[in-house]
């Protein structure tokens, strides 16, 4: 489970300090001290406990519908993690979630809330699709990167609008990104009912869902495990997550993002370009979501961009689910990979659960909402526990941490 401290926790810091038996005893002391208080409970178990509590409420709902929650959850778990095919499907589902979550991490670290994942996925997918439709004959080695870059840029542009308004006009970014979601979906409906549509598709036939023609095979994400759906998207998601982790914690740019997120005033006083940093964070965040859009289209089974016209459309609500994933991953790109896998399993297994006990997959959405509610509610208790912990350490004169570490821990 993701720890509360997002970089090195105090115990790893202590362990790394001395080496040999001395460090081992330090770790031991830390564990002993933790057990004696609520600290361990709150800081390490808060996230898993939130998930368990949400699942228990979900089980009560299943009971209320007269079904057996154990049968349901068993079907869910085996549908998500039972066997190599299920594991691969879950990984496949986790890819866009992880990409969106990584994007959310960047924005939230700068204290900008990007709720526009949905819109950025849509614009990213549209740009990638348009690229593949325009240049179908380029070889894979050229076309695929081009598609991904186009998607990233489009997603970045869409988030950048909100970022620009936030930075220079102080427009609430939560509201502007939500509005931009609505706009993006309508633009998609327009493009998929006109310019980008499959001309051979007959609209006279009722019930036909607007879609593009089969996209160039050169832009398909290659399958990496034969016999499953697992494709290159997994590699892309992990690479992006690692890159963002290094960006945030090992570069000056990442430091500025986190400093701005921690305190705009302090960052400004230190001479950092606060507005530009906020905008750039939003830009990068949107780029990740845009890539998620490309992965959703070019890694799909149909290899077309399809819309059913509803708000959740082909995105499957991933723009919102990614927020849940990022929160559950402690707003850390690397933990977000694991978190995405768990939530991907929840979504994949939800279908199996529906088949087994007849409770619709909306239950999974409900549980996700509860997870968010519980995680943010526990945050205050966690923060209090951490303040006590820091007070203890300062008292013992053990405060050797650098400003950077303090900063990251306070923001976590």
């Amino acid at each position: 489970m993701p720890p509360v401290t997002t970089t090195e926790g105090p115990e790893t810091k202590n362990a790394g300090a001395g080496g040999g038996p001395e460090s081992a005893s330090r770790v031991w002391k830390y564990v002993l001290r933790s057990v004696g208080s609520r600290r361990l409970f709150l800081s390490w178990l808060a996230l898993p406990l939130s998930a368990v509590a949400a699942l228990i409420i979900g089980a009560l709902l299943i009971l209320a519908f007269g079904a057996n929650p154990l049968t349901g959850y068993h079907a869910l778990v085996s549908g998500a993690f039972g066997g190599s095919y299920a594991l691969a499907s879950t990984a496949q589902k986790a890819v866009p979630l992880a990409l969106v979550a990584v994007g959310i991490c960047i924005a939230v670290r700068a204290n900008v809330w990007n709720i526009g994942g949905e819109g950025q996925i849509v614009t990213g997918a549209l740009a990638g699709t348009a690229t593949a439709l325009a240049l179908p004959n380029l070889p894979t080695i050229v076309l695929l990167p081009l598609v991904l870059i186009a998607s990233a840029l489009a997603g970045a542009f869409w988030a950048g609008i909100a970022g620009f308004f936030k930075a220079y006009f102080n427009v609430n970014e939560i509201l502007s990104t939500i509005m931009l979601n609505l706009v993006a979906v309508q633009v998609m409906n327009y493009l998929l009912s006109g310019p980008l549509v499959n001309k051979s598709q007959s609209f006279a036939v009722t019930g036909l869902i607007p879609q593009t023609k089969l996209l160039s095979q050169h832009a398909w994400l290659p399958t990496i495990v034969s016999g499953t759906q697992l494709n290159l998207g997994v590699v892309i998601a992990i690479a992006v997550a690692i890159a963002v982790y290094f960006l945030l914690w090992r570069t000056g740019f990442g430091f500025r993002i986190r400093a701005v997120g921690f305190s705009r005033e302090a960052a400004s006083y230190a001479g950092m370009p606060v507005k530009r940093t906020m905008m750039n964070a939003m830009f990068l965040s949107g780029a990740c979501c845009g890539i998620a859009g490309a992965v959703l289209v070019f890694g799909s089974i149909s290899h077309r961009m399809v819309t059913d016209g509803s708000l959740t459309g082909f995105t499957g609500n991933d723009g919102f689910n990614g927020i849940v994933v990022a929160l559950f991953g402690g707003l850390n790109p690397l933990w977000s990979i694991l978190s995405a896998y768990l939530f991907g399993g929840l979504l994949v297994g939800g279908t199996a659960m529906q088949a087994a006990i007849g409770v619709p997959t909306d239950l999974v959405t409900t549980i996700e909402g509860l997870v968010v509610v519980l995680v943010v509610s526990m945050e205050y208790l966690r923060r209090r526990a951490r303040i006590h912990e820091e007070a203890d350490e300062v008292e013992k004169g053990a405060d050797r941490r650098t400003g950077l570490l303090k900063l990251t821990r306070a923001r976590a």
Partner: protein
Amino acid sequence: MSHFFTYAVLTATVASAIQYSTPFLMAALGETVGQRSGVLNLGVDGIMLLGAFGCYYVALETNNAALGVLVGIAIGAVLGLITAFMSVTLKAQQGISGIGIFIFGLGLSDLLFVKLVGTPVPVSRLHPWAIPLLSRIPAIGRMFFKQNVLVYIAFLMVPAIAFVLYRTNYGTKVLAVGENPAAADSLGISVARIRYSTVIFGSAMAGLAGATLLLLDGIFQQDLTQSAGFIAVALVYFGAWRPAGVMSGSLLYGIVTAVVLQWKSLGIIPLSAADLAATAPAVITVLALVALAGRFKQPAQLGKPYVRGA
């Protein structure tokens, strides 16, 4: 275009614009009160969805729309209590806890709909109630005074809430808690109690808004609100946290929506561009947010939990 500027079409457009703006107005008024006390409740959309479903289910089972509306309000109030507990007592990050409530409401409303109802059956909608005399005024009567009773309630709430906020003891406390909770606290005003009351009121209004939205068409469906709750929150910013401003924002939104629909049905907007035209309300909202940003001061403590002595 000439078809649009006829007496019948124009009055019908205005009348439906007022109808469309009603749910937004209700939700936005409730949110205004909450935000004036310093609490940003972003769960409005989820509360609207659950309120709408509650109203739909009760109206379907009992064939009594009024009872359905009351249930919608009650559901909103319960969710408001939960929201207040999170943002006031547990001091949770308000933006994101609201998103949690939204996702919860989105999932649970459809879950309950699929399990308890399944096939969508329309419930009886609210009939317009013509106000005697006023509804006889040419044009104006048809536009404003032949609406259903919830529309009148929503628009009467505007002066009522303005009166409570600016002219009563309670309203002054609400404003004080939103601007300077420490000072209010030192004068013996319970910050928590005020914020609980405003958030519960605001959420009950969101539940009412959901019920109103439902009764426009009488059918529940997945994601019925289509982000209406978020738009309502945007309208609070648009209206600069004043009831009258919020009302003008809601009316503008309703008018743009009604005009776009009317133009579409008259063929003024070609069918191929209908989807693009449907972005108009959202685009206008964003532009309005940009144009108005910084002109008006938001409640000083908006979104910040109050910790005594911090």
